[in-house]
């Protein structure tokens, strides 16, 4: 990848560009334990990126945080960020409205290896807000549906209220995505419905619901650390998918995003530049030093 497509001008490595928020949309309401999630639609200015990449978002007056891009590159002229109000900067971001400007530095990171997956069946495993970066890839795949085999989505969240993109799920189903849902704690109503197929329990319990051909499947994962850990185990051990084809994204709090500040080191990898997308073989190597999840 050349410097020009690195996403930032070499001389102005730390300078964000000004981007206007076009639309703000509520995704998940606030709960007792977690903050609300909102989708921020941004102007794109012809920026090209790959699914799985992230950007450093500046909320003026608050600071800069890494946020993954959750819209597909093929989607017209916008970029969507799905952000939970969890920390100092993300809470400040939630206070912004349509028309406000934020700083955008990116795209950064390596992104999903989508080109090398053509012809394969794709299995997406997401937990909670982890669906946001996977959505970028999932929808990109739907833009190029013919290049891939089956597309499956296993998605789990804490409660039915915490499920993201519930408006998009029926649309994905119509485009041929086999969707399976799970929640840790049901609410009595949600379990009664049958479409899409669902279960109460952690997302890994959905593995027994699907049948697939491990020799032609690539799995993509994103979610909380504990989920990634168990899902990777399940995928390789129970579903027999080779570790090289289990691909997960890691989350760390980068300060620079460009391999300078040292905050995102996991074992000998810098998540911002070497990642955030790693396959299970790489992750296992890292785990021999310290657990990346």
């Amino acid at each position, binding site marked *: 990848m050349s410097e020009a497509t690195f996403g930032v001008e070499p001389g102005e490595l730390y300078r964000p560009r000004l981007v206007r928020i076009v639309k703000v949309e509520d995704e998940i309401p606030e709960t*007792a*334990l977690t903050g609300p999630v909102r989708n921020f639609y941004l102007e794109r200015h012809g920026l090209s990126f790959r699914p799985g990449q992230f950007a450093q978002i500046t909320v003026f007056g608050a600071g800069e945080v890494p946020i993954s891009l959750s819209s597909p590159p093929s989607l017209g002229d916008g970029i969507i960020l799905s952000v939970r109000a969890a*920390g*100092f900067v993300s809470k400040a971001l939630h206070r912004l409205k349509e028309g406000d400007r934020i700083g955008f530095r990116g795209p950064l990171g390596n992104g999903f290896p989508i080109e090398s997956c053509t012809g394969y069946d794709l299995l997406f495993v997401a937990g909670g807000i982890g669906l946001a970066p996977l959505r970028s890839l999932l929808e990109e795949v739907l833009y190029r549906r013919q290049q891939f085999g089956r597309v499956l989505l296993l998605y789990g969240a804490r409660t039915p209220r915490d499920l993201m993109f519930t408006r998009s799920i029926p649309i994905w189903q119509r485009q041929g995505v086999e969707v399976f849902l799970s929640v840790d704690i049901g609410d009595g109503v949600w379990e009664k419905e049958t479409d899409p197929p669902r279960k109460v329990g952690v997302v890994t319990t959905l593995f027994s619901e699907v049948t697939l051909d491990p020799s032609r499947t690539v799995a993509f994962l994103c979610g909380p650390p504990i989920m990634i850990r168990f899902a990777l185990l399940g995928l390789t051990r129970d579903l027999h998918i080779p570790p090289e084809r289990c691909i997960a994204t890691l989350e760390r709090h980068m300060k620079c995003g460009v391999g300078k500040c040292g905050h995102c080191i996991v074992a000998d990898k810098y998540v911002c530049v070497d990642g955030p997308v790693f396959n299970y073989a790489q992750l296992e190597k890292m785990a021999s030093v310290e657990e990346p999840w």
Partner: protein
Amino acid sequence: MVRYVGGKEGSIGHLNNTDLRATVCPYCGLGCGIGVWDGSAFPLEHHPVSQGGLFLRGWASAELLKSPLRLVRGQIRDPSGRKQSVSIEDGLRLAVEKIREIKQRYGPESLAVLASARLTTEEIALIKKLADSLGTPHRDSFQRLGFLPFSYHYLDDVEAAQEITVIATDPAPRHPQVHRRLVRAYYHGCRIRFVGCRQAALSPLTTFVGTPPGWELDRVNGKGSGLTLLSSEVGLQGQGARAWNVLNRERTLFLTDYVNQRGLMEARCYPTRDGMGAFEILRAARDGRIKALLIFGDDPSEFFPSLTEEAFARLEWSVVVDHVQTKTSDRAHLTLPGSFLWEKEGTVCNTEGRVQQVGPIEKSPTGWTEGQIALFLTDQLGNGGNEVTPPPLPYSSSSVIPDTPDQDFPFLISLDFSTFWNNHIYCHAAVSVWREVRSEKADFPDGYLAINAEDAQAAGLRPFTLAIVESREGKITLRVRLDGRLGKGSVLIPVSLWEKVGAALGALSVDPSLKIPIFRPTAVRLQQARQ
């Protein structure tokens, strides 16, 4: 400039701006030597305390020079609460007028003075003299905390000791240079024993004796030959007089919390037998018995925010002289800017009793120091009284008796000093330190209840959920935080909740032996709150 005496004598002279400028760390009571070089702080290698090392707070201390919380202008608050800038000279003139008026109307006993352990000994002496000349016996400081006047020992003695008992404190976060000496002593084969309700960082390498909070002294053979280390925790649990009676005074080292806490005591700026302590002064102000309060660098709202608010609402006149903006200075009628320790000349006295002379390494933004302001006020208002020397502490030999846990109330609640970053306002004013301090606050914005994981499980409490803490006198709801180092049967709350929880559970009281507010370890029971 730093000149230090005692143990090793030496000095580092005045140097010009492009050089390393030597001074003393303004945080804890050990007084590390700091060299300011190109705008940031570094440890002095040949200083007897720092020996090339500093704690995080010290490393970040140069940030205090240009902190946004610096006070650089005088401010006066009108009755509606609006603030206006005022020059220091005009402010002082107004203060003199007001204090004279109040003294005439209500008598000198309606005035009170609070000093600070962040000032130089000379300044504290001037502030004490101001109180004397105003004729008021009420002078003290919240930064005296649970100070106990134990005999002098050098850190070298800690390093060389064969047997050390550390009571109720963890030197790793509180007095890191002592931690360092303990590690070295450990390598020399010293037997180290920690006594307390919570394990210290070094406990895995040494012996740990678990006790309920407030009962540590029962497990100590005070007359033994070993060296005993303790800090304010003991006094703040009401055990001040007891520690004084039980421990071998010649073999005990008290670790002070503020850079010049010992200087504060040596300048005799604590209440006389008739005078009120800082906490009682604040209560008297709330009850309308104190009419005017002069505060030099002290911050009562760090510990008692509600009481401070009530007191300041009732006071007829209040002056806060400080170089950082605090919640207290926000409430004062008149705020006057002072100078930072690095901007003045004077001496500070560390925990060992080592006197260090410091000289200015930066120009004061206002040209006024707290000492000069006190001197000005003494000149203008003086001759009301004679110099009064308070008797040595403790005043009485009666201790506060902590609760004993029983069937109904099986836990003892006390203060968590492991998250107590003394000199809180300085921590707040330095960005690098504040990030470390605030993660606590970000995770638990309303404070927490620290509890051992087994206890939590037995009581049905999950982390981050709410628990009802109930004593015989009242109850309060707190968020659960698991603490792996805390022993069974004890629960702790952060020092910032001292007032709130103390009042709710009836644990907040006054220790007459030291005239300080205390958190009496109180028996409580826990239950899960409905979420």
